[in-house]
């Protein structure tokens, strides 16, 4: 699954550590999501949506085959 986390974070001028702090996860988790190595759980996806104040479907994009 693709996501726009890196772009959204850059727009707000947040570091990975800063975003990790807002999400209560490790910096490694933010990095893994940004690089597409990890798809977050539903709970974390909702949390990300709240932090960026945007709907989930505008942050996470389904990849077409």
């Amino acid at each position, binding site marked *: 699954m693709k996501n726009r986390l890196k772009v959204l974070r850059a727009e707000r001028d947040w570091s990975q550590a800063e975003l990790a702090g807002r999400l209560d996860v*490790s910096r490694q*988790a933010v990095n893994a999501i940004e*690089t597409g190595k990890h798809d977050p759980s539903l709970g974390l996806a909702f949390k990300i949506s709240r932090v960026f104040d945007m709907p989930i479907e505008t942050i996470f994009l389904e990849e077409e085959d």
Partner: protein
Amino acid sequence: MAYDPTAPSQEEQSHAYVLPWIGLAANGVLLADYTIGFGQGVDTASLAITGAMIFVTVFAHRYDDYFNGLRNVALRWGMAVIALYLFAGAVMGFLNGGNILGYWAAAGDLPDLARGNPGFMADGYLLAILSGLAYHLGFAVRRIRGTGSA
């Protein structure tokens, strides 16, 4: 969200990712000790470290989403080794049974039954080392290649 005074800090969550690497190194030493034999001190230290790392990473439930994803993959790898080990035992049992039947049909009496059982199949210590190693390797490989939708 409610404030939780016992929740791990971001730094503590980051440090957790080091634990499986320590476990992998200790597990590797344990396997080398099993095959080569370094001596009692190395044996005890690597046993303690490997056991502690597996225990801490399996039972600590307050790590973050990504860590839990990695742990799920690692547990699958560890259990897969146990399943393969047991399955291999079953295959050898069937083969041994076939051999016994063939021997009985040809010679009319039973062969030496102890000969058909390879010793390593009853070696629980080796199984523990191998499944632990698979657990740590699963963690390491998925850390490098990603968990996908874990």
